[in-house]
């Protein structure tokens, strides 16, 4: 938790100013979107809070090829935006409705959800499954990274300013499953899947598991298993077994590793069945 060491609450009005403040304060400065993670987990050494919600980064724009989500758009704004309604089977809405609560979604930003790298994050899981990229601002330049890559580079992640998350439009069918203990809970496991069909077979399969209890990651062995195959009961079942066997799972207070393995199989099966249904219905 931040403490009385915090001497300044800063509200830069340009990207440049924000960047300079980040450089000046280094690890003693923390970016504030909604601020939830800084309030809860900001270290006591924090001296400066740098609020980035005044930089005009809250815009969500549904373009022809890309859905651009401003980093300081709130999860509620993303959930309610007309552009999310039919993107990829309406998956964003489906996921966001089970993330946290409206009270938290009204405050939490998309950029914050990414930058906080919570292992239980449903948002990161679904974004990865949709091949999201993140646009970062550094030294006056905007650089786009595949989200997966950015998340693996923690050094960069903690020293960059995310300004936008981008989702490429594609003829994708997506599904999501979250296994939680109550309705307002993080998952014991979450599972985000998308498939771009090529004729009758799967092309570009994305299978993401989060809360394993590690942070959401693509499980390539499962993806490769399904790649180039049609979605049938047997390919779904096989993929579920591959996923369950390959997934790196651990015990924690929410669930045991072996139970997570069971859930991985169930989650894969359910997601792929739903994808198959949406594919054949064309939604």
């Amino acid at each position, binding site marked *: 938790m931040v403490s009385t060491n915090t001497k300044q609450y800063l509200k830069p009005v340009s990207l440049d100013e924000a960047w300079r403040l980040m450089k000046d304060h280094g690890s003693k400065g923390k970016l504030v979107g909604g601020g939830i993670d800084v309030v809860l987990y900001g270290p006591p050494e924090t001296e400066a809070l740098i609020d980035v919600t005044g930089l005009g980064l809250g815009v969500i724009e549904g373009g022809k090829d890309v859905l651009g989500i401003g980093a300081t758009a709130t999860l509620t704004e993303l959930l309610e935006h007309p552009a999310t309604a039919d993107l990829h089977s309406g998956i964003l809405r489906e996921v966001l409705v089970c993330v946290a609560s409206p009270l938290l979604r009204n405050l939490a930003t998309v950029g914050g959800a990414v930058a906080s790298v919570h292992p239980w994050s449903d948002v990161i899981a679904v974004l990865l499954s949709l091949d999201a990229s993140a646009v970062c601002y550094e030294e006056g330049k905007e650089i786009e990274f595949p989200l997966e890559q950015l998340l693996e580079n923690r050094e960069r992640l903690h020293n960059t300013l995310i300004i936008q998350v981008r989702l490429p439009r594609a003829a994708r069918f997506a599904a999501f499953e979250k*296994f939680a203990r109550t309705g307002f809970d993080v998952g014991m496991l979450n599972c985000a899947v998308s498939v771009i069909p090529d004729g009758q077979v799967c092309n570009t399969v994305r299978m993401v598991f989060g809360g394993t209890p590690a942070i959401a990651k693509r499980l390539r062995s499962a993806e490769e298993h399904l790649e180039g195959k049609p979605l049938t009961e047997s390919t779904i079942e096989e993929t579920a077994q591959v996923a369950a066997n390959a997934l790196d799972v651990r015990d924690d207070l929410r669930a*045991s590793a072996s139970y997570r393995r069971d859930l991985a199989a*169930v989650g894969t099966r359910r997601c792929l069945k739903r994808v198959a249904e949406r594919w054949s219905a064309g939604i």
Partner: protein
Amino acid sequence: MTHDHKTFDVVGKSLRKVDGVALVTGKPEFVADLQLPNTLHVKILGSKLAHAKIAKLDVSDAEAMPGVACVLTYKNTPPTRHTTAGQGYPEPSPYDTRMFEQKVRFIGDRVAAVAAETEAIAEAAIKAIHVEYEELPAVLSMDEARVEGAPVIHDEADSTGIYDAAHNIVADVDIDVGDVEKGFTESDLIVEQTCETQYAQHTPIETHVVLSYLDNADRLVLRTSTQVPFHVRRIVAQTLGIPMRDIRVIKPRIGGGFGTKQEVLLEDVAGWVTLQTGRPAFLSLTRQEEFAASRTRHPMRIRVKLGAKTDGRLHAIEMEATSNTGAYGSHGLTVLANTGSKTLPLYNKAPNAHFYGQAVYTNLAVGGAYRGYGATQGYFPLETAMDELAERLKMDPIELRRLNHIRVGETSPIFEKLGEGREGVSQTVKSCEMDRCLELGAERIAWAKKRGRRERDGSWVHGLGMAIMMQGSGIPEIDMAAATIKMNEDGSFNLLMGATDLGTGSDTILAQIAAEVLGVPLEKMLVTSSDTDFTPFDVGAYASSTTYVSGMAVQRAAEKVREQILDVAAPLLGDAAEGLELKHEAVRAANGSSVSLARVCQRAMYESDQFQIAATASCVPTESPPPFLANFAEVAVDTETGLVRVLHYVAAVDCGVAINPQLAEGQMEGAIVNGIGYALTEEMVLSSNGRVRNPTLFDYKIPGILDLPKLEILLVESYEPTGPMGAKSVGEIGINGPIPTIANAIYDAVGVRLTETPFTPERVLTALRSKERAG
């Protein structure tokens, strides 16, 4: 049972709570809402080890910090052993607690306290306290506690009331009726069930909190979130070594209690700070401290063995309970005793019964009072064993209950043998609508249609379960409640009661009782409760005593006041007092003439033979008439993940006459949803060294609104002749229902009997797999 149930004017109506407007408009009604100038903020340093001596304690850095007013340790506070349990004196809990001492017995146990100008300074000073521990081997489970050679948790010479401290046994109970071993040999069928229940916490949305200050007469005022203001006064006086008359305890609105506030947890520390510094002191537990260092449900292991005849009649019942009371013994004996005393009498006709068990110390979080108070744990094995018995007998579980449950006119020898730690009080049941509860509940859940069908819906299988229970209404011959009513010359009345409204609405229902007797609408009763200076004694809100015991005190006080009113009115109406009645704010004669209450009081106040129309009355109950509850649930079990969803829950309850049906429903709804959490999702997880790993609402999951099933409460009224207006109680019983009812429903759905709570998806799936493997 039909009775001459007269039509009430105020009782039996779902009137709005007297404090409702203040609560819904956010008025500053809670402890923390009163902010006094010059207040010190108090923080507690909790132990990092489960069992240790404090070898060195250096608070000099903390004391020297600017803004720190004082630091409390065992070196500068009174050493008086007491119990923190808010119970009647002499408390049936051991005196095993000191404000601070040179030993710690669980992670989070008090080491020291700091009072400072701000919370931030207090927190910083806490960090500046240097403690060196001499770690001791710890007892980290019930089973380890009694082993010969186990570490002795309470090895101090000055503790009293512990059954066998050398073996960590706080309490031992053993009562029997008939000869249970012989009974089992005479039985045609035997069913045995051993169940384990977990550490759970009450999670009131307002944590424990107190504000202490000196009034202008230098008396210590404790404005505290408590269920037991009078016990607080007495125990704080005892602990701090000051006269009781120098203490005033005020309970304002509080944010839930559920038993965890039937405890004197913070008031001694805050009070001592105020006495030492002369300044107000504010102490509030963080949510983490609320989990780890306040009070919890007692985890228990309970074995039930039933012996029955082929016709289904129970012939022998045995219940053996081991209760983990944690590092201190508050409520240890009484919760243990209640496990048997509130369960076994339900099946009173078994001629042989045996209840025995022990409550043991461990170096873990401390068990205390929690709604249901042992009965909640006890009904788990009892009602699941009954379910199994019904199956073996090929009898409908409802029929088995009908055959065996206690009825009007009957008694149970257990009533007399087992009370609150000591012997109980013999009684005969005078009101019981259990059969009607069973009938209505079964119909509402569509029992006959759905039970045993195992209806499938994808991977979900449906099942139905039921369970019955009783509780009590107050503690006979021990609890005492009193009320004072005084009249004002506009025809309104002040009602002063010690009785403690936790949000339950007792201020309202007690006022309804008084208003009914006095013939006035509710608004004419001005309620003041729970202030030890102004309201007469009441043990406080626990044991489901408020409606039955405090209600009777209120009814009696109102009746005395009525007599006085009639005496004053009689000459005004030219009629003898006997022929008059109070109705619609006036004294009315049979011939139609009347005089208003305002007029009566004016006369008594100002005109003739002046006196204050007022009376105080008390009630000590001589029995504890049980409310009765029949629970029915439809669940769906996801056979792929083990997730259990409660789809439909019906609770048919006989609480006597419901003084305020809406509030009675509210009590049931809240208790059942809490019970569902206890059954399915709530679990305090402990690390291997005894630390609570999930002391947050993020990690410890209580039901939220998304988890609410279709929940129906059926108030099946009876008329309890010994109760005020025919009422019994309703505060606790609901929480006992969900565990056994859901367990039985899961069995109906998927054929597995779970014996460990909570029924997490993982546990259910594991049980399903085992069953499949067993073929």
